[in-house]
């Protein structure tokens, strides 16, 4: 089986074929293919929620695929648990830098495979080996006896890399390693990655920074909606614009609802002036009128979600004001925003939006049960009725309001959140990635729903990573890049390419 391919192309070290991973109520991976060769830097690209982390966890042995095949040296393998992954030579460096702060560098590196004789650790040998590995990584200055908690993020990353090398890893998976580093440290990281690959180690590199991928990567695989949409593109032959398009573009065309246009005399409902949040974003001003949908377009990390959360008071603005119907909101107070008639459907539905083990109707009435109640006494009958009405109007399926929210699919969970604000009655609706994790069929429904809300007089802001979605749905668009609004104008007058140009200009600047 170890024949060299006659075409001269190197045999892949790791190959994934048709990987599917299903979770209760959701399909996180839906046919992922990936092929990694020894000595290459293989970049994995995709939006939040495209399935990258699920894919990594599958490789690291934390998840078992529902279907599909993983091959190492063209031999099918089962990665039953994290130890099995390490034994197969797959080491993963998570974004969260999972090191034990209270242990020394050497102890961290040999965590789980301690050098010991009869339970007594061979400290000097561990220290010696650690020194050797750190030397190889170009970090002689880190002492094996130093406590890891005292190291900066870059140092912790080195420790994780050293741990991978101590296991003789052949494939090192790095999940956004540069996100926690400053630019000088990033340069150093790149040097280390190049040295690793020169030794024949394959690196699977995940990053949102396109210029970084351009500098470092050999080949790219793009994921979208849990699928591989482009496999093993050669970095040098693929323009950045094409990559962004692959990540953000549509694979299927959706029908967007008509835009009736906003009446000239429609009153401004939401007025945001010079809003800023530390170094995340600054000087954001926008006005949304009744019946209008404003879209925020931008890449991950541009500050889109933070803008919504700051308007809502979930983050405390460091500058600027938010007014609803002319009345200024107290910054950083969510319940004041809710009382003023703002509703937020957050990006992370499960962790920020829903009570997963509570029935659907209680999720729908989470913002209103106090109002429905009489003198502090719950009226669950009225709650059920209000929820049922919305469930029918939104065609939420299955229709029962007593099943737990956990059992709903992504699209129906999103409908439940929209229903929450419909029951509440909102003047301003902030929607963060409303179609994330929503299957293709349900998207048009969600779009129609959002438009209907606007037609009923709500002022709506939509954030989406998918540029066509923003352009198709919104009346007006703000392009956000690097925490600044770089463009504002009617959605009709700008196309995807123009937005991409703006986004890239901004991120280069």
């Amino acid at each position, binding site marked *: 089986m170890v024949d060299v391919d006659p075409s001269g192309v190197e045999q892949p070290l790791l190959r994934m074929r048709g990987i599917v991973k299903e979770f209760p109520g959701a399909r996180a991976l839906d046919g992922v293919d990936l092929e990694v060769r020894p000595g290459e830097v293989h970049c994995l690209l995709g939006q939040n929620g495209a399935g990258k982390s699920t894919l990594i966890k599958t490789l690291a042995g934390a998840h078992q695929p529902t279907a599909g095949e993983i091959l190492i040296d063209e031999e099918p393998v089962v990665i039953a648990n994290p130890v099995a992954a390490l034994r197969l030579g797959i080491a993963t460096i998570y974004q969260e830098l999972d090191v034990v702060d209270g242990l020394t560098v050497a102890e961290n590196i040999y965590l789980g495979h301690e050098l010991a004789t009869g339970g007594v650790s061979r400290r000097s040998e561990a220290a010696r080996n650690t020194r050797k590995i750190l030397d190889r990584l170009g970090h002689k200055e880190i002492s094996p006896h130093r406590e890891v908690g005292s190291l900066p993020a870059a140092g912790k990353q080195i420790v994780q890399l050293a741990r991978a090398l101590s296991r003789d890893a052949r494939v090192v998976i790095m999940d956004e390693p540069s996100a926690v580093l400053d630019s000088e440290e990033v340069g150093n990281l790149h040097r280390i990655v190049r040295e690793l690959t020169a030794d024949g180690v394959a690196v699977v590199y995940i990053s949102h920074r396109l210029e970084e991928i351009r500098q470092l990567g050999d080949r790219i695989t793009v994921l979208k909606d849990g699928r591989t949409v482009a496999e093993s593109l050669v970095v040098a032959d693929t323009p950045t614009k094409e990559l962004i398009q692959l990540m953000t573009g549509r694979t299927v065309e959706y029908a967007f609802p008509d835009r009736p246009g906003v009446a000239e005399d429609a009153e401004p409902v939401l007025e945001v002036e010079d809003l800023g949040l530390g170094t995340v974003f600054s000087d954001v001003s926008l006005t949304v009128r009744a019946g209008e949908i404003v879209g925020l377009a931008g890449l991950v990390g541009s500050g889109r979600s933070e803008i919504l959360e700051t308007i809502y008071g979930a983050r405390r603005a460091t500058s600027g004001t938010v007014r609803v119907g002319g009345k200024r909101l107290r910054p950083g107070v969510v*319940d004041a925003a809710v009382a003023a008639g703002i509703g937020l459907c957050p990006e992370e539905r499960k962790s920020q939006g829903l*009570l997963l083990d509570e029935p659907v109707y209680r999720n729908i009435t989470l913002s209103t049960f106090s109002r429905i109640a009489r003198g*502090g006494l719950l009226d669950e009958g009225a709650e059920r009725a209000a929820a049922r009405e919305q469930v029918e109007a939104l065609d939420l399926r299955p229709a029962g309001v007593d099943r*737990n929210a956990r*059992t709903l699919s992504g699209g129906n969970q999103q409908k439940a959140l929209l229903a929450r604000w419909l029951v509440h009655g909102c003047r301003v609706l902030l929607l963060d990635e409303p179609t994330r994790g929503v299957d293709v069929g349900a998207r048009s429904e969600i779009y129609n729903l959002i438009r209907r809300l606007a037609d009923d007089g709500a002022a709506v802001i939509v954030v989406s990573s998918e540029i066509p979605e923003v352009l198709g749905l919104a009346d007006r668009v703000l392009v956000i890049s690097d925490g600044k609004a770089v463009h504002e104008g009617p959605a009709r007058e700008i196309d995807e390419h123009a937005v991409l140009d703006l986004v890239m200009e901004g991120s280069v600047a």
Partner: protein
Amino acid sequence: MSQRSALMGPALRMGGLVLALILLIVVGVATAGERFWSTGNLITVLSLAAVTGVVSIGMTFVITSGGIDLSVGAVVGLASVWASTLATQYAAEDYGWWVIPVTALAVGLVAGLINGLLVAYGKMPAFMATLAMLAAARGLAEIIAGRQTQIVDVEPFFDVFQARPLGVPTIVWIFVVVAAAGWFLLNRTTFGRRTVAVGGNPEASRLAGIKIKRHTLYLYGLAGLTAGIGAVILLARTTAGSSTHGTLLELDVIAAVVVGGTLLAGGRGTITGTVLGVLIFSTLTNVFVLNNLDSSVQAIAKGAIIVGAVLLQQWFASRERVSTT
């Protein structure tokens, strides 16, 4: 289908608790016969369960919200001492017996609100804030009492709290009323709904506009209040206030709540389960005492019950996950 299994989960859990209690009763009858199965003994069991029971109701709320209160035992001690000082007793002679329970309740409430302030607004981990209160309240109780037992000598107080309306002691009635009020508060009011929501997903609750800090403050206040009620019951039963009252009570209370089926991680709470948990432990104690068995053996049995109950709960929880998907 899934609707039925969602309803069967809690029913099964309750069934398990009832079964455990029946089993204990059978053992009691088999080993102690009449001495166990008599009205007098039954009332003794309930009287001895009253303090743990009342405090467990408050704790059920705190744990359902994802918190913990380690200070309840010490607060019971402090409230019992404060409500039985000479000054309080003179005031009770002058103004009426109600001065004693009101003092105990006020002390409990204030201690609880301090816990709540530290947790909600000081952003301290509940474990540490209430651990600090445990130490401080016990210390303050010792200073006030001068490490002396304070005998209560206010007859009208005992006329009320040692009475037996309908043949059942007042302190048992207090347990019944507090449990019923707790059930109502948790299941039928916005306060209860908020408690479950905050415990189930604090971030989602916050983003839905629930004032979670203020609610957290109230929750610890409620736990302190039930500790105050517990102190009143202890004063009535032992006729004395002492800085050692309620020592290690927090452990019995947490055990009863968790064995009853309230999730330690928050998001699900059951008053019925808590009451059953309290009754299981007090019946266990009673059966051991009646059989003159070593209290150390009893402690081991208690440990075994806790382990068994939590393992069963986890098993139910994992089964529920599967059956609803």
